[in-house]
């Protein structure tokens, strides 16, 4: 709870300073404290955004990710370490537990240092595959920086990434005003498994890039680890509990030197990019975006109030019953959900991309309705209210109103409200006289009743005289 208080206090004290929605305790695992200074601009940027950085060496035995069964930190940055193991507190199991407890991890790799086995097996669990050889390098003979790596071609230059799909928000595209370039110096690539829907690549290698083992003495690379677009440089995984995990292939991307180094692109395929001017890299902006996303400052959706009520149950919110547990079949119901999006420093109304929409499922075993939720016109300063009105199906049972909105780079929204839909009660059917088809039968009933009464009357007042002897005869 402490982080929550600190978050509240911070939010009150400094409105300008952005802060993560999940707390600001950031652990930086750095083996060599001398390296710390070469990334000072990155630390400063993080510090400015409100993070409290604590630097620890993986060799420190006192380091623990958890305290009293809770997370001791909110976020972790893992820098490449020289040693093969990462120590007892940074095992794959512990890191996975950290993710399961809703902590975020930014993992930086480097081709200079082999990846520790703890991290390899963790990545394997997440369906992210590193090259089997201990050393690996991404090179591109067409898209490298001629200023720093004209010989080795291992500083890959990439444009800002496009959106993953048409309907997915792009958090890493920059402002796309002028041509921006990201430098990826001496990094390790990885591939992503094909089945996990939780993985989303951020930076994929250019078509001409490939990864190979520099220790291999052969002149020609026989079987590169991966080539082209299959080779991922920066990838993310958002767990089901919305904990975020980012793999950054090259740690040097974050270094002071590369934050705004001058680079010049190689001529490219068939000399397409011949004669390009030297540019400054936008690594700094990219580093900010990727860390902001990983540490839950970007792409965080917050669900506010969820309401459902009878559409004609009352005009204003005070007179109608909100969120009843029971409805009747064929009731007209309105459902509304309030969603806001965290944009670095504050919550703003969420607007889905034009090609995407929020949907409401009315479901029992399988959806009976799947309806688009429309944003209401009434504006609120930091949230959008999506609503849908519908008629409940003619089927009683235990239904769920479910909003299942899971998109890459956005917090998973899976909200479920269970309601009981009952059958008609005995007094909710139309009365017999209201059904015109029943009039014949009603007339019949009353005809019989009246006829019987009349018959009894006639019978009683027309007793035959001297009935007694005749009655005897009959018997």
């Amino acid at each position, binding site marked *: 709870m402490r982080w929550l208080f600190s978050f509240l206090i911070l939010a009150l004290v400094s409105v300008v300073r952005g802060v993560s929605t999940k707390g600001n305790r950031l652990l930086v695992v750095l083996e060599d404290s001398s390296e710390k200074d070469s990334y000072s601009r990155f630390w400063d940027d993080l510090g400015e955004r409100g993070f409290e950085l604590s630097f620890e060496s993986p060799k420190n035995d006192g380091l623990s990710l958890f305290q009293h069964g809770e997370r001791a930190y909110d976020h972790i940055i893992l820098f490449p370490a020289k040693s093969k193991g990462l120590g007892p507190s940074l095992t794959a199991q512990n890191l996975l537990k950290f993710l399961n407890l809703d902590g975020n991890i930014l993992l930086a790799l480097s081709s200079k240092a082999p990846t520790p086995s703890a991290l390899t097996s963790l990545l394997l669990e997440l369906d992210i595959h590193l090259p089997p050889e201990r050393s690996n390098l991404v090179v591109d003979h067409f898209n490298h920086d001629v200023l720093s790596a004209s010989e080795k071609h291992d500083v890959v230059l990439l444009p800002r990434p496009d959106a993953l799909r048409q309907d997915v928000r792009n958090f890493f595209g920059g402002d796309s005003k002028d041509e921006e370039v990201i430098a990826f110096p001496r990094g390790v690539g990885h591939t992503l498994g*094909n089945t996990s*829907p939780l993985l989303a690549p951020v930076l994929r290698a250019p078509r001409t890039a490939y990864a190979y083992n520099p220790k291999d003495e052969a002149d020609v690379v026989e079987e590169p680890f991966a080539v082209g677009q299959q080779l991922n440089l920066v990838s993310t*995984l958002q767990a089901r509990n919305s904990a975020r995990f980012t793999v950054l292939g090259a740690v040097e991307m974050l270094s002071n030197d590369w934050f705004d180094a001058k680079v010049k692109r190689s001529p490219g395929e068939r000399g397409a990019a011949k004669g390009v001017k030297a540019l400054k890299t936008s690594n700094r902006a990219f580093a900010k975006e990727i860390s902001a996303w990983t540490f839950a400052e970007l792409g965080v959706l917050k669900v506010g109030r969820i309401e459902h009520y009878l559409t004609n149950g009352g005009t204003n919110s005070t007179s109608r019953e909100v969120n009843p547990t029971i409805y009747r079949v064929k009731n007209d119901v309105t459902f509304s959900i309030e969603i806001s999006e965290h944009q670095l420093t504050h919550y703003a109304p969420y607007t889905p991309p034009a090609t995407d929409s929020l949907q409401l499922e009315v479901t029992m075993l399988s959806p009976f309705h799947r309806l688009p939720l429309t944003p209401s016109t009434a504006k609120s300063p930091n949230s959008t209210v999506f609503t849908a009105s519908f008629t409940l199906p003619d089927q009683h049972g235990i239904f769920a109103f479910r909003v299942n909105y899971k998109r890459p780079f956005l917090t998973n929204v899976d909200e479920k409200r269970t309601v*009981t839909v*009952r059958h008609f009660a005995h007094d909710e059917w139309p009365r017999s006289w209201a059904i015109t088809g029943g009039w014949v039968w009603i007339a019949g009933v009353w005809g019989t009743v009246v006829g019987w009464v009349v018959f009894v009357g006639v019978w009683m007042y027309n007793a035959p005289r001297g009935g007694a002897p005749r009655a005897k005869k009959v018997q």
Partner: protein
Amino acid sequence: MADSAVGPFLQGTTGRNTRGLLRLVILCTIAAAAVASRLFSVIRFESIIHEFDPWFNFRATKYLVQHGFYSFWDWFDDRTWHPLGRVTGGTLYPGLMVTSGVIYKVLRLLSMPVDIRNICVLLAPAFSGLTALATYLLTSELSPSPSAGLLAAAFMGITPGYISRSVAGSYDNEAIAIFLLVFTFYLWIKALKLGSAFWGALTALFYFYMVSAWGGYVFITNLIPLHAFVLIAMGRYSPRLYVSYTTWYALGTLASMQIPFVGFLPISTSEHMSPLGVFGLLQIVAFVEFIRQQVPSKQFQTLLQSLIVAIFLASVGILILLTVAGVIAPWSGRFYSLWDTGYAKIHIPIIASVSEHQPTAWPAFFFDLNFLIWLFPAGVYLCFRTLKDEHVFVVIYSILASYFAGVMVRLMLTLTPVVCVAAALALSHILDTYLLIDSPSAEAYLNDGTRADSASSSTVSAPQKKPSSSAASDSLRSTRDPLVGIYSSMSKLSIAGAISTYLLLFVLHCTWVTSNAYSSPSVVLASRLPDGSQHIIDDYREAYQWLRQNTPNDAKIMSWWDYGYQIGGMADRATLVDNNTWNNTHIATVGKAMSSREEVSYPILRQHDVDYVLVVFGGVLGYSGDDINKFLWMVRIAEGVWPDEVKERDFFTARGEYRVDDEATPTMRNSLMYKMSYYNYNSLFPPGQARDRVRNSKLPAEGPRLNTLEEAFTSENWIIRIYKVKDLDNVGRDHASAMSFEKGSKKKESTSKRRAAKALRVE
């Protein structure tokens, strides 16, 4: 009974009063004995609701008392049959709950705040006292001898066949339904005897009560028309029959349609067509009788009679046509299984899986009825000797009920009243003959044929009173020469002694059976320790209490349907299926989840929002009523719906054995039920020594592994095991690999060998 030896106050008005008082005292004693003999379970255990169905009735009663009648009427229960829910108010027989509710309110009104649970527990014994009275009334209508009624009441009070369903705590529909059954029959016979619309209306009223209380009302619905039909066919049509039957049918049917569960069934299903047909037939017969009185022409009568037959045949034809066309529902599966005992096993396994729907084993008749079962035919024979209208009823009733009791164990209950009545008729006849102290004189009898010597020929009534003359020749041979009496006091003594012995043995047997077989609540098990003291095994309640205290209020529990009512009643948690087996597919879904591999079951569990799975396992104690023994029924029921996915054959070894040990089939060992039952079971034993005490077999050395479920609770004697369904893995792995990662085994990178086969990722 003008016996001079017995004393002055058995004669005249005083005598009648004394005997009346004595009869009343005896009846009250019988009722008290009936109640007392049903209290074993309360004394031995506690005041607790028994078994399965009573728990639902109890829960429904609590709902009724708490929310009032109208919300009970419209009750939609969202705690059972998740996520379908159950329109409970419209799918139950409310008679039982309303009865207890009324008693509860009346006691409140009298400032006697009795807990509703105690009312429910003691309702069945209380009503069994009333049943004894009703049996007395019914038998008294059949026999002029007062001892027959008293004997019948005594038999009915303590016979195990009825006690089995009416001990204290057995809060089931049958608890009040048997009283209503007997009382309705009594009223029907009364109405038929008197030809009174008043008694007919009373019959209809109690018929309505019966309809509201038990599905077995169909028995009355068919028995009374059959009686009427047989009477017509015997040429015994009378205005009395017409008045009583039409009154009963018109009022009773209209009344029964007021029960939502019954609704329009009385005019739309085959089971209810016979009263309608007989009603129509009676109208025609009555019309013909009327015409016959007016027109004495012989030819015309023949014509009319053929007309009756023609109309009858035509209406049967129309009935068949309507059934084929689907306007009238054909016989239900339960009904078919009454005619063909193998039918249910093939077509409706869910009905066959209930033990009380199995055919009755022969010893059960003696077990439940003791010496009544061999007095029963004698009683029926006596009914033939005095074949009045009401005796025809007893004959029909006994034939039908004997058949049904042979088909289904449960229907022993409907047989019991008629057995008691018939046996009492026979026994009272014997006693009336043999217990006279003074010898009758044959001369006096022959000379004075009209003297009502009730001792010897009480049941040989009016028609045979003047037999010696002309009418004797054309009646049954046995009735031709009248009984006169027993002269030897030796035979009197020996018969009286034998009968007393039988009666005493009967009482002993009833007490023994009640105490040993029928007084166990089955929620609580009792066992004997080596030193003879009683040891209570209370696993069920322990587990249900655990559920109640440790799971969220809206947790959904999946178990086999047998335990649905108990979970709802004791643990107050939502269940997927319960003992109200209205949806076969839903039960089959649970069966499929239990009998499939984890990978198949898990999506089913997820789809149904299951939080916990409960299984019953008797391997530790040797408790044979556990889920592994019921497992084949789950498989069969699931196979009925998904014949391609679940196959019963796969659960048997090649030699056709059902095994759980090393030789169990892979399907069996991978089924969820097997895994849940034997998970961690090895840890109780030294390595390789695990034994199942129910199946009496040695278990595989390595126990099953569970990936998608985790053990949440296991009761003291391992009878109940509860598993929690895991959520999806947080980082998107399947459960098996997540489990092996937690265990520490490393995932193998498979790329080095088969690089070419690697699938490319496409966004």
